[in-house]
């Protein structure tokens, strides 16, 4: 087949376009950093998940060890049922506790795992027993205000 300069230009153009796609995928989107790893699913029930979203990070000691797989409402227990996809490279004891935390003051919410001391490790499909839901700001303010009111009452007679 006869080769022309046109072919060269089209080839360069296609290469540049594909290069841009690869740049977007690797440098911008960070593909394959976590999704390719094998994961195992662990379930946790929370009384309140706050603003937790699917694909939010699961961290232990600040290191991302997994992602939130799915969030559902358990109609039997009236609690939120959260499935955590944890990277198979990381094993946790069965008495690991999960809590929903916020990164920074206004940051996104993530699930924090605190490893327990049990010798048995979590198997796929297990449920985390000890959980701590998200802190709701209104409740916090409410508690603070009630605490303040109680304080001033109890301290008034001593004055």
């Amino acid at each position, binding site marked *: 087949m006869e080769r022309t300069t*046109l072919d060269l230009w*089209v080839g360069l*153009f296609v290469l540049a376009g594909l290069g841009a*796609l690869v740049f*977007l995928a690797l440098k*911008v989107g960070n*593909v394959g950093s976590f999704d390719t790893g094998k994961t195992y699913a662990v379930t946790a029930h929370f009384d309140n998940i706050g603003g937790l*979203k699917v694909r939010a990070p699961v961290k232990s000691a600040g290191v991302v060890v997994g992602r939130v797989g799915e969030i559902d409402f358990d109609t039997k227990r009236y609690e939120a049922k959260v499935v955590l996809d944890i990277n198979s490279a990381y094993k946790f004891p069965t008495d690991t506790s999960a809590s929903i935390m916020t990164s920074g003051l206004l940051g996104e919410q993530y699930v924090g795992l605190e490893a327990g001391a049990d010798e048995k490790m979590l198997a796929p499909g297990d449920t985390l027993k000890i959980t701590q839901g998200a802190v709701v700001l209104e409740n916090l303010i409410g508690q603070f205000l009630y605490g303040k009111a109680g304080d001033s009452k109890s301290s008034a007679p001593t004055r």
Partner: protein
Amino acid sequence: MLDAIRSVGRRVIDGVWRLGTSFRFFILTVLHSWICVRRPQLVLKEIFSSGVLSFIIIVVSGLFVGMVLGLQGYETLQTYGSEEALGVLVALSLVRELGPVVAALLFASRAGSAITAEIGLMGATEQIAAMEMMAVDPIARVVAPRFWGGVISMPLLAALFSAMGIFGGYLVGVVLIGVDEGSFWSQMQAAVDFRGDIVNGVIKSLVFGVAVTVIALFEGYNAPPTAEGVSRATTRTVVTSSLTILALDFVLTAFMFRGV
């Protein structure tokens, strides 16, 4: 009064008519595409004229759009003390919206108008009629290669636009203003999802590529064979495809990014 109502009705009916005809034209083009597999040289030539020749305008505009995003984003984010999120802002707005949309708008005015004018002139100078006389199917020989050339070029151009824009944002944000380079890239990588953002952006640009080339080809193929007719068809191509891009973008965005 009655004339005014009549003309409105005529315009609406005419619009629906054109929509139906252009859809039939699109189906016909796809059905006649086997020639592009047998003679890929034809498609290569069209990728050259619609893709390679749009390369410079896409790269330069992408760079400038990214630089403006970097400047404006920095100004706004600075007031909240979160200028490290500049990378996220630039990357997400480019990959999700500006890349596909602005690249498609530029593509419509740079390549779409050229396609319409070319085919319109072919019709005006009776080249298309001559092809039919020689039993050469003009849809297969003229229309289908241009269609596939445009559809292949558009996602590549949109990706180039986004990449250049992010580079422009990096130039202004990191090199010029001095946002921390590490957090610029790492926050961007944490926030941009491959499937949710980048693949959706590519799908958008594919849809825009199909829409723009079909509109350009249809307008050119059906242009009245006069100088005025060709000029009108070219204007219509740019106006119609720009409006179609923006409307389609709204629909696609509503489907793709409806929360999580």
